[in-house]
């Protein structure tokens, strides 16, 4: 009995090397595609609504905001996933916050250096990327348990899914609210002469919420799996 046990323990399990996955395998592509629709961070996972909607009055700041979030989610996922095995479990939130805050400081300084006017427009909302639930949510849910490359893709995917909603909302609000897109006037002057008015209501904050509500409505009526039961 004893001998058999000792022999059992001495046999080392033969390590089968998994074949290397290609960089853009089907599974990795899914990591980017999924958050754009079926598991969109805003409309399905309910993450990261916080710091976003106040910047959606016009398209330009919201595109800048979306890009900043993509950069921060992608790189924070990459960094955390690289060091995930040496982070002590008890202090992981603080480690994560520190890394995210450092990345956001970088983004903030870059924005201040190159697009100062947009950075002024975004005011505190760049700093609020730190507490954007998408970043923390994806770090906890994905990066802590996956390899760096899939985590990086997951970060990009979720950042883009977030950006998609942001750009959609801002396009609706800018077009109906001021007749422009990206600052270019689209509604011709003759319309205004005929008595067309910009919908001033679109510029006010509550409209952003209602538009997101309508986007959720459209998405869920097309994709009935997402409907909540209660």
């Amino acid at each position: 009995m004893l001998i058999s046990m000792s022999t059992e323990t001495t046999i080392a399990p033969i390590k089968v090397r998994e074949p290397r996955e290609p960089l853009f395998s089907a599974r990795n592509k899914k990591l980017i595609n999924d958050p754009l629709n079926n598991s969109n961070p805003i409309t399905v996972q309910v993450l990261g609504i916080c710091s976003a909607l106040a910047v959606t009055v016009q398209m330009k700041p919201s595109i800048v905001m979306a890009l900043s979030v993509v950069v921060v989610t992608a790189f924070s996922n990459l960094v955390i996933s690289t060091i995930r095995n040496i982070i002590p479990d008890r202090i992981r939130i603080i480690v994560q916050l520190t890394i995210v805050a450092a990345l956001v400081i970088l983004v903030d300084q870059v924005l201040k250096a190159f697009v100062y006017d947009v950075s002024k427009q975004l005011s505190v909302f760049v700093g609020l990327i730190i507490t954007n639930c998408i970043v923390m949510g994806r770090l906890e849910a994905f990066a802590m348990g996956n390899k760096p490359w899939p985590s990086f893709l997951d970060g990009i995917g979720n950042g883009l899914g977030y950006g998609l909603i942001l750009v959609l909302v801002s396009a609706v609000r800018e077009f109906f609210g001021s007749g422009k897109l990206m600052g270019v006037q689209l509604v011709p002057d003759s319309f205004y002469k005929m008595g067309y008015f910009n919908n001033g209501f679109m510029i006010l904050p509550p409209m952003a919420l209602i538009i997101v509500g309508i986007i959720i409505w459209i998405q869920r009526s097309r994709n009935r799996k997402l409907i909540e039961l209660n």
Partner: protein
Amino acid sequence: MEHVNIFVKAVFIENMIFAYFLGMCSYLAISKTVKNAVGLGSAVIFVLAVSVPVCYLMENYLLKAGALSWLSEDYANLDLSFLSFIMYIAVIAAITQLVEMAVEKFAPALYMALGIFLPLIAVNCSILGGALFMQEREYASLGEATVFGLGSGVGWFIAIVSIAAIREKIRYSNVPAPLRGLGIAFILTGLMGIAFMSFMGIKI
């Protein structure tokens, strides 16, 4: 008088949820029953009322351009304001930890009910948002900063408790299936935001 003005403005006109959408994640997730909403709301009031003045002190005695001059003349032209994000988030995380310990000790039932969302106050956007608005608006004294923090917390409390009350009742109404849950919560928040806009322009 200035203090009352700041308080009223923070509660009603510049409400964290209805005007800036800050702290929406926990707002949507915890607002299913009024009881839990009251618990989380009071925790947020406390954390905001403590962390905003602490951040104010840090801003004015450590981070702002020339803020270090009380230490020595040599540091008078240092500007550490780029570090403010990381310093604020550290302060907020520490205070949240304190609150968590207090709630666990004195109200274990509430602690169980709030679950993961209590530590997540640290990443509740309204807390960091309060600190950053304080920095941007450059309040004149510690008192004004405290009142602003308290007011923002009370505003958030009112918002989450009222949406929780509405969501408790809306269970009995016939909402279109795709709109149920998240969708209707967004639209309700939008409508409440419109209602709160009627406070605009009030000055005491």
